[in-house]
């Protein structure tokens, strides 16, 4: 069978054309292979940098894929900064939601959410707020803003657009070779 190369590749076009909104610090780190760190959030216009970092941490805890770098989670949440800049209600929703989550984390673990060490503990905190408007909005936005990043698709073995490559008629539409005989 024809397999899909799942090694992450840095797609220059993504940054040149701004297909997804990725802070320049993240783009540079990704290009040279450095850890992404937290400096990327310092350019936030409307939300607090720590809030953006918490959103990225929540994004990974909501949709955890260990084979994905932070890059994709950061790209999926940075749009909230723009939305908050344009709409005070969004800013209140996000800052308020993160503040409550941090307070819950303080009460239970003595630290802010993003600093709680164990994923299971963070997930339990998220379960506590999953019926809130903040969590529901974040999750429903994230399911699109995370999985609709085109350069993330090959990492899952999905090949995306096909008509421009002549379809799959000569590219393995029927190449399965492991089924038991009937």
């Amino acid at each position, binding site marked *: *069978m024809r*397999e*899909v190369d799942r090694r992450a590749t840095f797609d220059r076009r993504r940054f040149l054309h701004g297909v997804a909104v990725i802070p320049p610090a993240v783009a540079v780190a990704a290009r040279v292979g450095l850890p992404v760190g937290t400096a990327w959030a310092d350019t936030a216009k409307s939300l607090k940098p720590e809030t953006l970092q918490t959103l990225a941490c929540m994004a990974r805890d*909501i*949709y*955890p*894929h260990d*084979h994905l770098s932070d890059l994709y989670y950061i790209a999926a949440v940075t749009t909230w900064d723009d939305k908050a800049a344009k709409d005070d209600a969004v800013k209140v929703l996000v800052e308020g939601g993160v503040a409550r989550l941090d307070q819950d984390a303080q009460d239970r673990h003595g630290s802010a959410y993003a600093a709680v060490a164990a994923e299971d503990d963070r*997930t339990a905190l*998220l379960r506590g707020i*999953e019926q809130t408007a903040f969590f529901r909005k974040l*999750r429903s936005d994230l*399911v*699109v803003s*995370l*999985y*609709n990043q*085109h350069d993330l*698709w090959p990492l*899952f*073995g*999905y*090949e*995306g*657009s*096909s*008509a*421009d490559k*002549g*379809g*799959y*008629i000569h*590219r*393995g*539409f*029927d*190449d*399965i070779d*492991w*089924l*038991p005989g*009937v």
Partner: protein
Amino acid sequence: MAQFDLNDDGLVVIIGSGAGGGTLGNELAQKGVKTVILEAGARHEIQDFINDEWASFVQLAWTDARTTSGGWRVAHDFPNLPAWIVKSVGGSTVHWAGASLRFEEHEFKARTTYGAVPGAALLDWPVTLQEMEPWYAKAEDRMGVTRTNGIAGLPGNNNYKVLEAGAKKLGYKEVHTGRMAINSQPRDGRGACQQIGFCFQGCKSGAKWSTLYTEIPKGEATGNLEVRPGCMAVKIEHDASGKVTGVVYVDGDGKTQRQKARVVAVAGNSIESPRLLLNSASSQFPDGLANSSGQVGRNYMRHTTGTVWGMFDKPVHMYRGTTMAGIVRDEARNDPSRGFLGGYELETLSLGLPFLAAFLDPGAWGRSFTSALDDYANMAGMWIVGEDMPQEGNRITLDPVVKDANGLPVASVHYDDHANDKAMRDHAYRQGSAIYEAVGATRVIRTPPYPSTHNLGTNRMSAKPRDGVVNSHGQAHDIRNLFVSDGSQFTTGAACNPTLTIVALAVRQAAFIAESMGKKEI
């Protein structure tokens, strides 16, 4: 290309350009009947289609406001998206999968076959399979349906091969790559399927039949058909004698226009069609047009659906090739010993990663969910298409609060599963799971129904005027020159994807309308 005058009162005006409206428009044009199609959506041609699920959804889907209620999970997960249908020239034939199945004889006689079912508003169709057979044959020929007219079946893709292997291990006999309105060889000026995938996003090779690039241009070439995109019908008008006289619509520039008509045919799919009739209420028809029975909007059916995903320890790449790549038909029979009436088909289905994430288990998050997506390349998928029970309370009504851009009440869609629907779905989930487990699935996931793609029954055919909205030709019982030409005329839903039957009915209806006009009966 024809361009008709707004005051021309000799026209047939069709609302909607999908399987029903597009086919009816071409058939009438071929017979020399001057026809205008009003289409709410824009005209996107093959070259405009996008192999990208969300971008295509934004381009093609009907996303105007609607509301929902009832026990179906769609009302909770997608409260403003009860249906996934298309707002574009060609209607839902742009994104349909291509499955083209004839009803079985008993499926035209649901009330007689199934008996009196508590809670169900069953009725026999006022037509029989025997009467429909020649029209089915015409429809299959014009659509180029595989396994009819000497047309070979499509080759099976990986997703089909998994289904076939599992089904045969279970002992299923009628397992094949379907009767599909997708060219397996060049035909009718269109090429053969390139196994692109993205059937739901508009076929970029044109191998799949759609009114957009078959019926509509053929009709336009006669000089008798004019298609007006971007024109949203808001009201059908009538005179003092009760005959309809024209259609008020809002054009692409937001201007209100009034097209006179000799005959009006409604083909806006089973949510918008009843909405238009209800929004056309007048002092003479206070409950809406063609609604003396009170049946307009009732008996909304959407098929008993669900999806089964099988995960394997090796790759499948289900997204390669046709989306509906094959079918198991053995469970389509009516066999009440299974614990439910009617039957269901199992048909392959694939989604790309973005849509799978959104629809696998709406609202779910955490590692159980993401571990399924991690195995995306190793998944196979099948969709259940079963006959659901018509119920009076499953219904399209006018929302009392929410209005559209033109200030008109939007459609509100209420749906509850019947006990028979639930029993059928559970059976289908079990059989679907067994198919994948028979060939080594390590995990099976059951996905709840998506927003409806098969919307049926809300202006149903009936022999008696008190039981339904239209007669056996789709002609309103109450108003002789008003017709319904889409799936809303279905009396019951059968275990069949509806498009072939909609097309067959439209071809038959065109002959009836042309003949009635010739005899000056309408």
